[in-house]
């Protein structure tokens, strides 16, 4: 029984969510008395992969075939499945991203495996099964789910576990090639368009989000300036995206993007139950609203009842004054 971690990389680097998956995989391997091996696909710096040793990965299988430059589900699944076979892995750990859960789903069908997404805690061993805690009902509840198949796949939700380094050793990087055909690349992307903005919403540790209380898109510079001062990503509530003040890919909530940053700052958002569902797994929630009865205050850790056009500039000033 060994543990295989799929390490997601982008722009030549290991993603932060992949470090969480690596550390989670290491912890599970320790529980099972085995070691954690990773598989990485595409162009990524060797030092980045060696550095995974600090998170408990002993070896990284690295497939650099040029056709794998962009994500295509069939091809990536074949590579991960080949790594599973090589390492005789019975537990596979991935990040709960579009790519991670996409690979997990195909892999589960291919290997007849149990698959849990949105996992927020380390598993409990229960005989030949693993029991995991996962977020359900869009963050409104948790479920304890038992993975009963011999092979188990776990997609770890971002920021759900605390990552520590476990030493200074470097992971061994081993070249790895899976046998792929042209048919595996059906649906390869023709063009990739990167979102603008300095910090990715799905990867961000701090998110500053605006609602209808912002009164109009012309006031969005307040959200952007506060986000910039805090190194944060920007987001918005559904009504704001619906009226076109902000693009839909910034909409966080039950039917938009579900996020779990360390800090979520909601400006002029009253906190409808659907919005809360998408953000309530954030570690710390700050709510700024002029209405003291706004339901969001019940879910908040810190709050300011006041005029956002007076409050936010003060926050920007204070954030800029912070020693970084």
């Amino acid at each position, binding site marked *: 029984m060994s543990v295989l971690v799929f390490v997601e990389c982008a722009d030549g680097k290991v993603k932060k969510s992949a470090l969480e998956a690596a550390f989670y995989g290491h912890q599970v391997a320790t529980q099972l008395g085995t070691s954690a091996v990773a598989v990485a696909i595409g162009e990524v710096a060797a030092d980045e992969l060696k550095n995974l040793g600090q998170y408990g990965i002993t070896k990284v299988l690295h497939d650099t075939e040029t056709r794998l430059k962009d994500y295509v*589900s069939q091809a990536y699944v074949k590579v991960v499945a080949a790594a599973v076979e090589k390492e005789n892995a019975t537990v596979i750990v991935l990040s709960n991203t579009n790519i991670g859960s996409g690979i997990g789903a195909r892999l*589960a069908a291919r290997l007849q495996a149990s698959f849990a997404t949105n996992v927020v805690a380390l598993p409990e061993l229960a005989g030949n099964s693993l029991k995991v805690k996962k977020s359900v009902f869009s963050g409104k509840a948790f*479920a304890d789910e038992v993975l009963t198949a011999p092979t188990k796949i776990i997609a770890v939700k971002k920021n759900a576990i605390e990552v520590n380094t476990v030493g200074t050793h470097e992971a061994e990087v081993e070249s790895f090639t899976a046998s792929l055909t042209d048919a595996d690349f059906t649906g390869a992307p023709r063009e990739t368009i990167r979102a603008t903005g300095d910090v990715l919403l799905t990867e961000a540790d701090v998110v500053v989000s605006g609602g209808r209380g912002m009164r109009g898109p012309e006031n969005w510079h307040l959200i952007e300036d506060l986000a910039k001062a805090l190194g944060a990503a920007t987001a918005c509530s559904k009504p704001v995206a619906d009226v076109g003040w902000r693009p839909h890919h910034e909409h966080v909530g039950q*039917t938009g993007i579900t996020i779990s940053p360390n*800090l979520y700052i909601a400006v002029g958002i009253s906190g409808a139950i659907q919005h809360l569902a998408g953000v309530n797994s954030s*570690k710390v929630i700050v709510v700024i609203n002029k209405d003291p009865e706004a339901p969001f205050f*019940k879910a908040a850790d810190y709050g300011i009842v006041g005029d956002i056009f007076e409050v936010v500039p003060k*926050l920007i000033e204070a954030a800029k004054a912070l020693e970084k």
Partner: protein
Amino acid sequence: MKILVCISNVPDTTTKISFSSDNKELNTAGVQFVINPYDEYALTRALELKESLGGTVTVLNVGLADTEANIRKALAIGADDAIRVNLKPTDSFLVAQQIAEVAKNEAYDLILMGKESVDYNGAQVHGMVAELLGWPAIVPAIKLDVAGNTATLEREIEGGKEIVKVNLPIVVSCQQPMSEPRIPNMRGIMTARTKPLKVVEPVSGEAKTQTEAYALPEKKSGVKLIDPANAGELITLLRNEAKII
């Protein structure tokens, strides 16, 4: 164009979630069930494609008889016919097997569904169905156009989007702003009553996961309010007390 749209039956998004006293079941008393919002994007886009290119839209639900109200709603919105696989959907793999079984016997060009259900948030069924059928899966898609045998899609990736061109058949999961969901009109509601809704028994399969218990998140201890006149103090608290920035 022959399109299959898979829909799930989920609690309305305004539902306050609670569980039975043993925490094993969702407390459904007073809960209204709706078509999963993401599946509505899939359904509407399917209908738009049918209207411009011709063809049929079949709605598929894996569920017990209590889901038929929402299947009829999908028919009222414009689907041509419906299939209900008579099985309580307890596990993604079990559901995917049922969908793949239905699809295996019909020559669908497209299988569309939402990117995830808003109840169990598995985001697994589309990938599993694609793998079981050996088809490409484009997930999650925000745009889908079809010309001849080729689909052009925009797929959301972390930090941007990709444009993908791929030959049919494919599985696509949908999210905003794929389409604008429709409300059934009176004529649609009347004609839905006469549209075919076929109930089929499930194929045998084995669930790979079991939900043992549910729990609600711990309640927050209460909000700490900061005087708006000294709003900057919030930043100090976030650094020194919450240690979060």
